[in-house]
């Protein structure tokens, strides 16, 4: 089923600052939002200012059909994310959505593990909600540099058991997500692992999952010019050659990928 992509002016209705370089923007639209799936993303315009004339891709963080709202978790990295991430209630952003494929849903009754690193938690909120809506359940494992960068913990802990790791040990287990005990018994507890975060983290998670014989879906990032499959700038190496992260992804089964080093 193809959902028609739309260009919309979204109005920010809530700006929640998570820490000094992350914010969640909740937005609404005059027009009805198209159905948005976990793992999909939007191409957001930062306006035509210095060095940001191309759009920037951001995952769908949350989507509420009844309230007609969508939210994004924005990490402030450069100019573009700074402009988008500082939009205030009442202000508008121009977006194209929905873009990309989505995470595949577990069967009813299955239990899955969601793993996220840093702002890789962005797509996990809607993913957890969707897993539950599909009649499955999940545990959630997120890691970050420190306590301050563990984000959306309250929201996530309502959707499944939340495990955390921090590199400095300020919260949860000290180390990377792969150092967490739940990663040692994947096969025993989960039918599938989902992962979103920095490449090395996803790679490490996928390696363990593959070794344990558990399916692993990862959500990739790449530099994108169009987000709609027109420019071929966002390819990743797969077992079937170059594929576009924006249309063939951003979600891939880890076995499809030839991870770069």
């Amino acid at each position, binding site marked *: 089923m193809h959902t028609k992509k739309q260009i919309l002016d979204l109005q920010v209705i809530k700006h929640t600052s998570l820490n000094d370089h992350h914010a969640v923007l909740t937005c609404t639209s005059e027009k009805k939002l198209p159905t948005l799936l976990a793992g999909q993303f939007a191409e957001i315009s930062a306006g035509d200012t210095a060095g940001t004339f191309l759009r920037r891709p951001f995952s769908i963080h949350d989507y509420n059909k009844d309230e007609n709202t969508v939210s994004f978790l924005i990490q402030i990295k450069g100019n573009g994310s700074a402009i988008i991430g500082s939009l205030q209630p009442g202000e508008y952003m121009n977006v194209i959505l929905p873009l990309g494929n989505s995470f595949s849903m577990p069967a009813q009754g299955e239990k899955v593990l969601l793993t996220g690193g840093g702002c890789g938690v962005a797509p996990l909120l809607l993913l957890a909600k969707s897993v539950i809506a599909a009649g499955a359940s999940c545990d959630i494992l997120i890691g970050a540099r420190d306590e301050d960068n563990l984000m959306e913990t309250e929201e996530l802990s309502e959707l499944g058991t939340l495990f955390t790791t921090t590199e400095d040990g300020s919260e949860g287990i000290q180390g990377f997500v792969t150092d967490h005990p739940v990663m040692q018994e994947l096969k025993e507890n989960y039918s599938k692992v989902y992962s979103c975060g920095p490449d090395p983290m996803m790679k490490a998670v996928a390696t363990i999952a593959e070794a344990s014989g558990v399916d692993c879906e990862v959500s990739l990032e790449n530099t994108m010019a169009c987000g709609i499959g027109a420019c071929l700038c*966002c390819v990743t190496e797969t077992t079937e050659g170059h594929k576009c992260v924006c249309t063939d992804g951003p979600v891939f089964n880890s076995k499809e990928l030839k991870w770069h080093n």
Partner: protein
Amino acid sequence: MAQLNVNIDKLKLANPVLTASGTFGYGFEFDDFIDVNDLGGIVVKATTEEHREGNKYPRMAETPHGMLNAVGLQNKGIKYFRDEIYPKLRKYSTNVIANVSGSTVESYVAVAREMNQLDHIPAIELNISCPNVKEGGMAFGTSCASAQEVTKAVREVYDKTLIVKLSPNVTNIADIALAVEESGADAVSLINTLLSMAIDIRTQRPVLSTITGGLSGPAVKPVALRMVWQVAQAVKIPVIGMGGITNAEDAIEFLLAGATAIEVGTANFIDPQVTVKIINGINEYLEHTGCQSVNEIIGALKTK
């Protein structure tokens, strides 16, 4: 409504707005946003003789009002195009133009010969100007002799409208344009991307996997406009202008400079509906300035 139709050789365009190869996929990618048939035509992504995986990533970098790309002609080759893509392209009633690329004269000829058989492809754009392939590509477009050689060879096997796409990475683009005109081109299109580079000072590495790539977008517009003007002065065949066109004003600058039609590239990434807005904007300009037809402004630049 002013008359927007223009002719490029035997090719009849309902309006002078085309899309630039490599920036508009095969058109399908834009079906959600516009009615592709509203355009004068579309130039689809490059086709080569063989399947090409293209370059490694990263393939893209943003620069001040420009973007670098290093796609490297990724495509599945002419056979796949003919058997799998072409049938789907038949749904469009507007002109579907193929962009033909290669690394040897023979490979250009092989693709052109196949394209000649495809009823629904009324024209090809011969890409002798891609800066993102190691062998051939741009090299053909940077000397008169090689531009001539490949144009002549393709002309022999291709009966329909032959557009040759020129490289801006040359000392005198008008000379190359004259050379391909002499060799049988029915039109020229320009500019392809400017060979460029970006460096990530944190990693101390080039941003692109290929070190250098091609610059496009608003940043190149002043260079493109100059070249279109120079070429339009030099040749008798129609000129198709492109490079940084982002709105109707930009498009009109190219028409005034002598372009019979224009192609829109990078701007499609920012606004997938931009082409239709440009068509409307050209119409408004013509009505505003009291012109009956777009032909009245083509090459109408006053330099005295």
